[in-house]
């Protein structure tokens, strides 16, 4: 297994090269460059002269074909330099690093919450399949799925933050955060996070619950479950210990696939709650053609994606001994 993992990591580096190469090619060929916008922010009466443009192009390596630019970028990355933002001219790792903890707090909490809610709900739905209660719960979940979270966010804000003033309206920390006691800081962070986490989580409940139920429904029909039933095992024990363990394969796949979402954030919710996370940064970087920032983020996402895939593949072998990698 260890050799398998080592091999995968090695291959992963090549995959990363391929991905970054493709993405670099794509972003350099999207219409517009960072200078397009810059031309529009200068004074009304003038645009940058050709001379100025050439200097800027040289500085951002836009004068070179994209595949040459890629090698320069790669060379810098090898030396641990992700480059510099174009609008926010700090180093890319600082720009991303500033936002990463906030995003992790939002997405991590939401992801954990999703699984904590959906696994029991999925099991419960399986046990109560086709009953009225189960139909009611799943219908409610579908309604939540169809309710866009920007709608929920605005109404939750209106009621809870503005009318009742129970929770803060926006931001990730309040005024005077630095002066608070550690307990105060904790509550401050939690109170700011409740609404966005709620909005981020509820839409995905239907999908995961349904997913777990679908897989469980298949498993509980297997022969060994009948055997367990015949042996007189309690229904809960059958569901949890026998059936659930055997429907873990798809769940592991999904966990692997959702791992990169940890870093992705959510553009809409980050905007509504002025959260300053990765999602909005990425969207903004793309629209402003901030090549170095885009590449830094894509690199980070890709590493996370590959790790997620690797984790899933490794876990398969643990979850189901029949699966081997030779």
């Amino acid at each position, binding site marked *: 297994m260890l050799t398998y993992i080592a091999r995968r990591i090695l*291959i992963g580096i090549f995959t990363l090269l391929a991905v970054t190469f493709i993405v670099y090619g*794509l972003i350099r060929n999207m219409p517009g460059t960072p200078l397009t916008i810059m031309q529009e922010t200068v004074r009304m009466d003038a645009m940058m002269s050709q001379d100025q443009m050439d200097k800027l192009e040289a500085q951002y390596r836009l004068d070179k074909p994209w595949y040459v630019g890629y090698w320069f970028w790669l060379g810098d990355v090898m030396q641990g330099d992700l480059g510099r933002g174009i609008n926010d001219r700090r180093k890319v790792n600082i720009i991303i690093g500033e936002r990463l903890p906030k995003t992790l707090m939002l997405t991590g909490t939401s992801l954990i919450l999703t699984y904590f809610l959906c696994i029991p709900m999925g099991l419960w739905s399986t046990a109560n399949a086709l009953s009225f209660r189960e139909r009611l719960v799943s219908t409610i979940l579908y309604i939540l799925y169809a309710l*866009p979270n*920007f*709608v929920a966010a605005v109404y939750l804000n209106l009621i809870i933050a503005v009318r009742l003033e129970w929770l803060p309206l926006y931001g990730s920390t309040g005024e005077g955060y630095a002066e608070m006691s550690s307990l105060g800081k904790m509550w401050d962070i939690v109170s700011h996070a409740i609404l966005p986490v709620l909005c981020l989580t509820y839409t995905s409940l239907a999908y995961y619950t349904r997913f777990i139920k*679908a897989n469980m429904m298949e498993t509980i029909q297997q022969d060994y479950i009948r055997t367990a039933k015949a042996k007189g095992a309690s229904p809960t024990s059958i569901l949890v210990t026998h059936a659930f363990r055997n429907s873990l394969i798809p769940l592991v796949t999904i966990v692997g*696939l959702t791992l*990169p979402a940890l870093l992705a954030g959510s553009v809409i919710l980050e905007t509504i709650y002025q959260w300053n996370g990765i999602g909005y940064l990425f969207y903004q970087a793309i629209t402003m053609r901030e090549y170095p920032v885009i590449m830094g983020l894509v690199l980070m996402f890709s590493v996370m994606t590959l790790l997620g*895939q690797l984790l899933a593949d490794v876990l398969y072998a643990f979850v189901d001994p029949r*699966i081997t990698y030779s």
Partner: protein
Amino acid sequence: MSAAAELAEQPVKPTKPAVSQGFWATAWRYYRRRPMAMLGLYFVAFLAIVAIFSPAIAGTKPIVCSYKGNIYFPCMGYFYAPWENAIFTTGDHFEKRYEPNLKANDPDSWAIWPLVRQDPIERVRENWFEGQPGNPDKADGKPSWQNLMGTDSNGVDVFAQLVHGTRVALLVGFVSMGIAGAIGIAVGACAGYFGGWVDFVLSRFIEIILCVPTLILVIALLAIAEHPSIWQVVAVIGLTGWTGIARLTRAEFLKIKQIEYVAAAKAMGAGSMRIMFIHILRNALAPILVPISFGIAAAIFTESALSFLGIGADTLTPTWGRVLHEGQNNIRSMWWLIFFPGLAIFTTVLAYNLIGEGIQEATDPRTRDA
């Protein structure tokens, strides 16, 4: 139990073994017995009917009319603009006002009108129909007898938009998930079944697609596409949305190919294709059907997000997503812009999932009798 009873009632000729029904025929037989699944199917069929007959349900152009001695079907213009006969547009300059113009230009004309005289693109003005006032707009556009589901901020009837938007909703969902499903299942099945270097290559391919952000692809596509259309949206969603399905299929195949019956099938000389798509796939459907049935609905959201980026349906093509987007801009003042498309999406998601559940249970021999 009932299946057995049915079989028992059939006249059995002991000398000849009964020819078993095909896999899909059996599945259909079991599917039909599930009322909820059938309900889902009926609903989708209903949507399809709405989509096909949308110009007859809501519109301001006559379904059929006689004008200056000829019979015309102007409502076909809702499907494709040039099908609206030029005599009404560049000829006699009706400017969309059919009723007064028909009467004024040809007293002998007659017309059969759609059920609801509302346009999905433009606000119906005061002088379009006799006795029908112009549409209200903005916060005044609450649902009323004239505008069943209200109007949007431009005064365009929401009901008409939703009816006509059904075409795009169905198309985007089915075609994009059709593409995604086909690619995902094929890639995942090959990777999982063959393993080895096939798995190696395909898995890296999946990884690369997973890593390239869709937003970048979409904007890059703008560079190539001169007139981005709904088909490009479908292609983007389809060509990028299959990775999850592929991973799930692959995982199931990795597991199932080790089960004895696959070995048995192999021993009996079944080809790889047969084993993969007949023997294994039907047992691997459970986890795949969920992302597909959700994906069909999610495509509606994606379409709305993409049209914001300038790719997708243009103004003259009404979509559910557009109403929702309008709602987003008027979120506190016009609830009906969220409620009705939300309701449409909810029922669609529900229907697709009921169908998904039904298919899963009808194709799995172990769950059929549950």
